[in-house]
């Protein structure tokens, strides 16, 4: 079984008692307890201001247990990418920000798109999945 593990440590002193949370999960296929995700896509690219880009080129199997990591590696904190899923705005990742989400890809409108703002953003992403549908060769 392929094994993918994602761990996070989150600390904050915004509350009167400092918060520290650590979590780790092994990424399994949907509905299973013994079979890990076995596909992945990993990339790094520049995205010019104003460009909107469907992050995932091929459609992962819908409504499974895919996980998506995305980081904006821009060193300018004023640069950001806006994240949308279909027509729904999700949020913005400024230079240095990352996100890690379960990605449903429930249908063609469920694809995740990013739009660059402020300048040329440098984006790194990794998608862990359990199968994708490749486009047929033209």
């Amino acid at each position, binding site marked *: 079984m392929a094994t993918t593990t994602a761990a996070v440590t989150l600390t*904050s002193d*915004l509350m009167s008692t400092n918060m520290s949370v650590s979590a780790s999960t092994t990424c399994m296929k949907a509905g299973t307890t013994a079979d890990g995700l076995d596909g992945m896509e990993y990339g790094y690219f520049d995205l010019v201001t104003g460009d909107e880009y469907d992050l995932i080129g091929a459609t992962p199997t819908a409504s499974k247990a895919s996980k998506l990591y995305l980081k904006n590696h821009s060193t300018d*904190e004023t640069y950001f990418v806006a994240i949308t899923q279909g027509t729904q705005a999700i949020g913005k990742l400024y230079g240095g920000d990352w*996100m890690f989400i379960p*990605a449903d890809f429930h249908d063609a409108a469920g694809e995740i798109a990013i739009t660059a703002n402020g300048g040329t953003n440098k984006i790194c992403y990794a998608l862990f999945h359990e199968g994708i549908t490749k486009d047929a060769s033209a």
Partner: protein
Amino acid sequence: MATTATISISSDIAPGFGGISESMNLTQAGNLTDIDSTTGFSIRKLSTNSAVDLITMANELVEPKDSVAAKIFIRNIGHKGVIDKSVGVTIGVNSEPIGLLYGGDWMMMPLTCIDADDITATPATDDTVVLEYVMFYEEA
């Protein structure tokens, strides 16, 4: 007043993949000032398979600023020490399903904090499951 999140991903799916290890300081939009507000750490026990709001943006006591640098952390911690990785809770934004958090899974996601963009949770079954979550945001 610093809030920091560090992620480490390891995987043997692809030969040669060296893993990911990255950290971020949660700052306000467009500058290096630390983010200044939080909901605090909360848990929510769910026992039916109907959708509930984890965060109702319009009801926050401290109004979040819209469309900036907010983030939310959510984790499915199972129930009473039992973590079932075969069932999950669909997390959504304004009814748009983002994905399923299976037992033990966690997520960190940026948010708009626009009033309509509530964060929803819909368990796949009526088995009791607990989510823990915290939102960081800028005060409007």
